[in-house]
């Protein structure tokens, strides 16, 4: 007799109630895998994360081709971070440190005066790029005060480079950083997949009996007997006369 705590061991009443008036047919329509569920998970993981690692290898090799521009940009950013460490009070510390002869310490930027920056949102920085002008530069600056039609193309370009370091086109140049980002993402996803695979083998407790196919079949049959959702849902899809799914 069916109660809530039916055990999965086969009994006579169970086999009798499992057979309908037709010959025993499969109660459930989904496919049954021959492996146990933990092996299923392992197989799914084995097929999933090697492509991740493969993709990461490809992307890291692509990004290593552009290591020059990559390192230049990241090194520039790190140097910028280091150089901006000094505050107004430390404007004289660079001379002190240089006198002590510390090796490999970059001179700290003086933060008490306006600084130059190449930023897309700041078209006119606080000071020109070149503020120590040679004699030739000075004479060109004097010529700039006159009519600009008299300036040649090279003189205009020289004046531009005196005022600015990079053009907008140079600032907006693509860096290829996205390859490292995607590579890192796939690498860590793959690494996580390895960790999870190890966990399924060494950490997870044994699966409850309710995951087995026989138990699932008995569960489906009990739900149909109880007429679960008979209007639009579960039992509505079962043909009770024929004993099969509609």
């Amino acid at each position, binding site marked *: *007799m*069916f*109660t809530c705590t039916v055990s999965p061991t086969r009994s006579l009443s169970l086999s009798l*109630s499992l057979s309908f008036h037709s010959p025993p047919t499969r109660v459930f329509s989904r496919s049954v895998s021959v492996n146990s569920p933990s092996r299923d998970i392992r197989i799914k993981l084995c097929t999933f994360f090697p492509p991740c690692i493969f993709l990461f290898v490809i992307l890291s090799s692509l990004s290593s081709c552009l290591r020059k521009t990559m390192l230049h940009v990241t090194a520039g950013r790190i140097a910028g971070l280091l150089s901006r460490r000094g505050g107004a009070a430390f404007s004289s510390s660079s001379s002190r440190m240089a006198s002590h002869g510390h090796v490999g310490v970059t001179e700290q930027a003086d933060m008490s005066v306006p600084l130059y920056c190449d930023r897309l949102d700041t078209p006119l920085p606080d000071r020109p790029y070149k503020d120590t002008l040679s004699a030739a530069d000075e004479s060109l600056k004097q010529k700039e005060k006159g009519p600009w039609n008299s300036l040649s193309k090279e003189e205009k370009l020289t004046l531009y480079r005196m005022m600015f370091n990079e053009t907008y086109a140079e600032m907006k140049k693509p860096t290829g950083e996205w390859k490292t980002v995607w590579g890192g993402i796939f690498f860590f996803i793959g690494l996580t997949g390895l960790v999870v695979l190890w966990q399924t083998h060494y950490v997870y407790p044994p699966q409850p009996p309710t995951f087995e196919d026989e138990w699932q079949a008995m569960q489906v049959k*009990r739900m149909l*007997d*109880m*007429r679960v959702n*008979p*209007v*639009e849902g579960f039992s509505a899809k079962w043909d*009770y006369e024929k004993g099969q799914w509609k």
Partner: protein
Amino acid sequence: MSLVKPAMRGLLAKRLRFHLPIAFGLSLVAAAGFKYTVTEPRKQAYADFYKRYDSMKEFSAMREAGVFESVRPTGK
């Protein structure tokens, strides 16, 4: 050269005048769509189910299957 003075006021009002009717219209369309694709078929499904529903037949079928605890299947 003299440039045209840009609009300084009424920007939100102008945006609302354009977008609010669209918003209301789309909401009404969504509600009507849901009504006629979900609720009306569901009401019909329930009506059809109960038109030919024999509760005693269903009860005895469930009883024979043995899902009840208050009544045993007949024959025990």
